[in-house]
C-alpha cells in the first residue's frame, strides 16, 4: 500500500488541475456566449484587427 504515498497526491493534483482549468475558462469569459463559441470553433480563420481589411464581398454568407 506504499503506492498510495504518491498516487493520492497525484490524484489530488490532477483534480486540482481540472478545477484550475475550469476557473480559468470562467474568468476568460468562455461561458458568456455558448451559441457563438460553437460556431467560432468551426470558423475557418481568426477575425482580428491585425489582418488586412477584407472587402465585404468575400465575407462568409450563410443561410439564416
Amino acid at each position, binding site marked *: *500500500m506504499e503506492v*498510495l504515498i504518491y498516487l*493520492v497526491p497525484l*490524484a*489530488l493534483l490532477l*483534480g*486540482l488541475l*481540472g*478545477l484550475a482549468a*475550469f*476557473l480559468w475558462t*470562467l474568468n476568460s469569459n468562455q*461561458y*458568456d*456566449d*455558448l*451559441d*457563438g463559441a460553437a*460556431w*467560432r470553433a*468551426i*470558423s475557418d480563420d481568426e*477575425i*482580428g*484587427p491585425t*489582418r488586412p*481589411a*477584407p*472587402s*465585404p464581398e468575400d*465575407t*462568409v*454568407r*450563410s*443561410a*439564416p
Partner: protein
Amino acid sequence: MRDFSHFVKHNAGTAGMDLALEGVSCAGCVAKIERGLFALPDVTKARVNLTERRLAVEWTDGAIDPAKIVDRIAELGYRAHPYEAASAEKSEIAETRFLLRCLGVAAFAAMNVMLLSVSVWSGNVSDISPEQRDFFHWLSALIALPASAYAGQPFFRSALRALKARHTNMDVPISIGVTLALALSVYETWHHAEHAYFDASVMLLTFLLAGRTLDQSMRRRTTAIATNLAALRADMATKVVGDELIESPVAAIAPGDLVLVRPGERIAVDGVVIGGTSEIDNSLVTGETAYLAARPGATVFSGTLNVSGLLRIKATKPASGSLLDEIDKLLQKATAERTRYVRLADRAASLYAPVVHSTALLTLLGWLFLGAGLHDSIVIAISVLIITCPCALGLAIPAVQVVAVGALFRAGVLLNRGDALERLADVDTIVFDKTGTLTLPEPEVANAAGIDAQTLNLAGRLALGSRHPLAVALARAVGAREPLPAVVEQAGRGVLSVVDGQPLKLGSPDFCDAQAQTSEASAAYPDASVIAFSQGKTRVVFAFRQRLREDAAAVIAGLKQAGYRIAILSGDRMESVADIATALSIDAWQAGLSPADKIARIEEMRKAGRRVLMVGDGLNDAPSLAAANVSMSPVSATHLAQAAADAIFLGERLEPVATALKLSRRAFKVMKQNLWLAVIYNAVALPVAIAGLVTPLIAAAAMSGSSILVTANALRARAGAKQTWKGAIPWKS
C-alpha cells in the same frame, strides 16, 4: 447628425460601446459584422455575442464617431442600438459567475471525496486497516472543509440574512445540516471511528448549486433579452443646439434643452410647447383615443404621440425623471403596499425546519433516555439531520422553475421577477386594459370594404408620403410599397400629388373638401377618427378604429371556459369600451377611469378575496400593474408599465397571456408534487435514521436517488408546451 457619446465608455486611450443587435441569427452574421467593423481603421475590438444578440466594440479614443459604427452595421444589413446595461443585469452577471465558481469547487470536492469514500466503504466490508481508513478520512477532511466553506457561501449568507430578518428559509436547514455533518465527521475521524459524512455534505452542496446555477442563468438570459428589447425601442430625440439639429438618445436630454418633434414622432420628454401647433395622441398615457390640441404654452408628456404639426418643446425634466406626478405618487404607493407574497419554498421551509429540528432533538433525548450514552445519542441525532437535509426539497422548486421559465420563454413570455410564476398560478381574476392591450397599438380602416381597390391602392401609396399616424396606418393596411412621385406635404393639413394630370389629396376633411362624406362616415362609425382622400372629383373618407388583437376573442373565450373571471378597466370613452366589451362578450367593464380609480377597483376585488392578474400597457396602467397580485405587459407597452409588470409578452397576439397562466398552473402543481415526493422520501428515511441504522453509504444513495427523482419529475412541467413564439427575436435560430 447623431450623438451617441452618452453610451461611450472611455478607458485608457480606448473608447468602447455596447450595442444590441437586430437581425443576427447565425455564424455568418457574426463573421460578417466582426469583419466589417475591423475593416474600419482604428477599431481594436469587435465581438458579437450570439447568445445574447449583442456586440461589444472598442476603438482608439477620438478616432471614430460612434455614429459611424452604427452606420457601418446598417450598411452590413443589420440594425444596432446602443444600450446601457441596467445595474440589475450587472449584479446578475456577477451572481451567475459566483455560483458557477462555487459549483466548480463543490463538484471537484465531491468527485475526489466520493472516490475516497467508496474506497472506505468497500474497505469496511473487506480488509481496510484502521490507519488507512483514518488516512482516507483526514484526506477527505482536507478537501471537504475548505471546499464547503467556499462553495457553501451562497447558502450560509442567505440563511444568515433570513435569520437576521427573523424568519427561516430553505437555506437555514441546509446550512445547519452541512455544518453539523462536517463537524461530526471531524469529531469522528479524530476518534478513529468507522463512519464520516464528508461526502454527504459536499455532494449536497453540488446538487443544490447545480439547481441554483441553472435557475440563475435562466434569469440572467431573461434580463439580457429584456434589456435588448428596451434598447431596440430606445428613442432618439432631435435636439436643437443653435442652428444645428442633433439626433441624441433620449437619456441624454437634460432639462432646458430644446427638442424638435416632427409629426408622427413620439414626444420623448416632459416639457412645454414653445413653438408650433399640433394634436397630441395621449392613448399611451391615459388610454383616451381622441386627440388633444397642443399650442404654445401647453404642457406635454413623454410617451405621447405628436400627430399633425411640427412642435418645438423645452424639456422640463430629464428623461429618466419624466413622469406624470400623479402617476408617480400612485405608483410609489402601490409598490410599497404590494403584497409580500411568501414563496412556496419558504412556506415549505417554515414548516419543514421546526419539524426536522425537533425530531432530531427528540431522537437525542430518546436515545439518552434509553441509556445510549451522550456520544452515540449525538451521533444518531446528527445523522437524522444529515439524512433529512433538504437536498430534494432544495431542488424541488428551482428545477421546476428552470423548466417552466424555459417553456414560457419559447411561448414568448419573459418573466421579470422570480416569484411571478407562483403568483400567476394563483390567479382567479384577470383585468385587462383596453387600448394597446386588448387592441393593437395601431388602428385599422373600418370602412375598407366599401371602397374600391384602385382608390384604396392610390390612397395608400399617397399615404406613404406622410408621417401622420393615420396615414401610416392606412399605408400599412393597404400594403402600399411604392410611394407616389412628387408628394408635397402641407403641414397640419395633408399631402398632395398629381397622377395622370389628376390632383390627389389626403388629409383633413377640409383639405380634401369632403365634409359631406365625413359626416356620413362619422354617423356610421361614431367613435372613429377619419382622414379624407380626393382624386379629381371623387371624395372618399377613411374611418379608423381600434383593432382587436387577432386572437383576442378566442383567448378571452378560452380563459372564461377555464374558469377565470374577466374584466376591462379602461381610461377611454364609454362608447369605445362598450364596443370592445360586446365584441369579446365581457360583461364586467368600466370606462373613463383615472389611474387612481383603476387601483381602487383592483383593491375592491382583492378585498373580496380575489387574486387579480392585471394586463396593461399604458403609463396610466403602471400603478395598477403594481397594485395587482401579478401583472403582465405587452412588449409595445411604455417603459414604465414594463418596469412595473411581472412579465412581458411578445408579439401581436394575446395568446401568450393564456399560455403563461396554463404553464404556471402546471408548474405550480409539479412544484407541489415535488415537495410531496421529498416529504415521502423523508418519511421513509427518517425512521431508519432515528433507529441509528444510517451509514454514509445509505445517506449518499438516498440523497442522489431523491434528487434525481425530483429533477426528472420537474421535466414534466414543460409537457404540452409548444414553441408558439415565432417572432423577430429568436432565442435559438
